[in-house]
């Protein structure tokens, strides 16, 4: 520390960090969009990074059923999933259409990486999603579970509530997030370009990322 202070001999002792100007004249968000357009941009940018995007509607009245459980059941069946990792706070209705033969693996402290390696898929919610960059942010909340469950299984289904969980830009996302929680920002599935710059999906993380945009606004748009 003394070395650092000696190295900064040219900085006046009375100067405070605030006296070094930082002009934040950059945009809070790029462009003007309605919330439906923001959701569309999110879908477009997710797909651009080879995430598979689906839409499901959540009805405004509790009498009509949501299409979400059937969609999740179909996506798991399409992959031939035999087991699914389940975060502790995942809404029970989300997996209500998944046959009992698909083993539920609850995310508990006892679950080891080896156990997870044998799990086919994982279903989670998210903390926030960023339209401009096509990014889903997980903050280890109850419907997302510990970081490892979205990392070791090869197939991740992530449900985003359109409107209230979608923001336009990186600055808008950061102000919603709590730095004390561990955060994982996901933009498309795991990828590498290390071999002659050819993009290959899935070196270590899930090779398939499926995103479901759910909410009244998204109904019937895709």
């Amino acid at each position, binding site marked *: *520390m003394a*070395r*650092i*202070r*000696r*190295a*900064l*001999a040219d*900085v006046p002792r009375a*100067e*405070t*960090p605030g006296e*070094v100007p*930082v*002009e*934040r*004249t*950059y*945009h809070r968000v*790029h462009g003007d969009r309605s919330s439906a357009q923001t959701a569309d941009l999110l879908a477009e*940018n997710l797909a651009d*990074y080879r995430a598979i995007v689906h839409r499901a509607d959540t009805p405004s009245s509790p009498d009509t059923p949501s299409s979400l459980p059937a969609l999740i059941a179909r996506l798991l069946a399409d992959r031939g999933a035999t087991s699914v990792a389940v975060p502790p706070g995942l809404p029970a209705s989300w997996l209500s259409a998944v046959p009992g033969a698909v083993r539920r693996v609850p995310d508990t402290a006892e679950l080891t*990486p080896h156990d997870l*390696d044998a799990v086919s898929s994982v279903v989670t919610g998210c903390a926030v999603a*960023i339209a*401009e*960059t096509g*990014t889903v942010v997980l903050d*280890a909340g109850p419907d997302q579970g*510990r*970081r*490892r469950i979205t*990392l070791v299984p090869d197939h991740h289904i992530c449900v985003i509530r359109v409107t209230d969980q979608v923001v336009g830009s*990186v*600055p808008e996302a*950061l102000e919603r997030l709590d*730095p*004390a*929680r*561990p*955060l*994982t*920002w*996901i*933009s*498309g599935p*795991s*990828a*590498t*370009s*290390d*071999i*002659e*710059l050819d993009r*290959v999906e*899935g*070196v*270590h*993380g*899930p090779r398939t990322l499926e995103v479901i945009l759910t909410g009244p606004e998204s109904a019937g748009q895709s």
Partner: protein
Amino acid sequence: MPAFPQAANASTRNTHLRANLRHATHTIRAKRATAVAELDDWSRLRAAGAAIKDRTLRHLDQYLEQLESAVTAAGGQIHWAADADEANRIVTELVRATGEREVVKVKSMATQEIGLNGALATAGITAYETDLAELIVQLGDDLPSHILVPAIHRNRGEIRDIFTEKMSQWGRPAPDGLTDAPADLAEAARLHLREKFLNAKVGISGANFMVAETGTLVVVESEGNGRMCLTLPETLISVVGIEKVVPTFQDLEVFLQLLPRSSTAERMNPYTSTWTGTTDADGPRAFHLVLLDNGRTDTLADTVGRQALRCIRCSACLNVCPVYERAGGHAYGSAYPGPIGAILTPQLRGTQSELDASLPYASSLCGACYEVCPVAIDIPEILVHLRERVVEGGPASVRGTRTVIKPAKGHAAERAAMRAARWALDHPRLLRTGQRLASRTRRFHPRRLPGPGRAWSDTRELPKVPEESFRDWWQRTRGGSGTGSGTEGRKDTT
């Protein structure tokens, strides 16, 4: 390591290497331009990025103290390392304390810089590199040649051969009949490394950013090997340069826009992980942060060179540099190749060795690196500043102490030429006579310099001496303008 000119002399003759590099740098360069063009406030983000880093560097002591207390409060432990040896010793002891003999590593420039893998190996600890490119480099017993894509000098056939021959010595062998298709090679790496991740008890990482306000560390990556190393082991050790700190969590909004677009030319990299100390039952139970100086305070003490510490390691400057494109990364003889390496390495290590003294000359000063730099580091300015230090010596900070360094050896001819130029420019009459003499004898000038100037003219065209000196031309024509003198001037020459 040989000095840059010798190393480059060999590497520029390797046509295979040059073709790989040309393809890579031109591809990334073009993609980056598109990604940057998407944001119409790029120049403002760039200015804000530079300003935040300047604010941090001018008050680095304060921010590091703040970081230390935030990390400690969140359950992490801080260690200070003045140089590479000390950092390596600290990490070795931390690994030993866990009783483990193997560690998994996420790619890190800082650990590359201090030669951590070698130090651990000496202590009987095996470090497994888990980034695909770093794995290729490690298995091939090679050195990285690019900041972002360390194995860029290898093509798919070479990679297949390395995997087939070497994987079995490090763990799970490559599958039989492995082809050179990138997808197959990536699959082989996935299987080979998964075995290591699932059993790893200790992970070692660097960090792209550290937030002083909250004690949060940030790692930006693509493959997920970072997430594996950061979350599966019981102990996590991060080795990070002291300049990587940013004041607030909000400041990440600038760098998370600048970094991915500048480096991989993406709107956002596939994975970004942040962690603040330790979290119960999620991720490592023990977290150690080793804060590395290793020449950074010496760099900080130089008011011109200090701006090099703004660098966020995006590698955009490598991809536009005509010298890097031809010479390749190995010629720079350090973890940091390309234009940023040419200014960072001689500042971190000093200019005493022949290699380090030659690095400020590994540039054509074309300025393309400054244009693309997302935090506006004026690389040409620092190059010229360091050339002056190499040739003339002068005041500098060496290992924390202010001192006056001597001129580097081997620049006697340059110093003599500079002295002669100074003398000639101080005597205008003699200069004029000399220029006239040179013009009259121009037919007899050799294409290469004799004697000590020979090395210089080996790689350069000698400038042609004009028929007439500028001063004579001006005297005669008054610059070709004014009251008719221009016409007269033209008449005179016809």
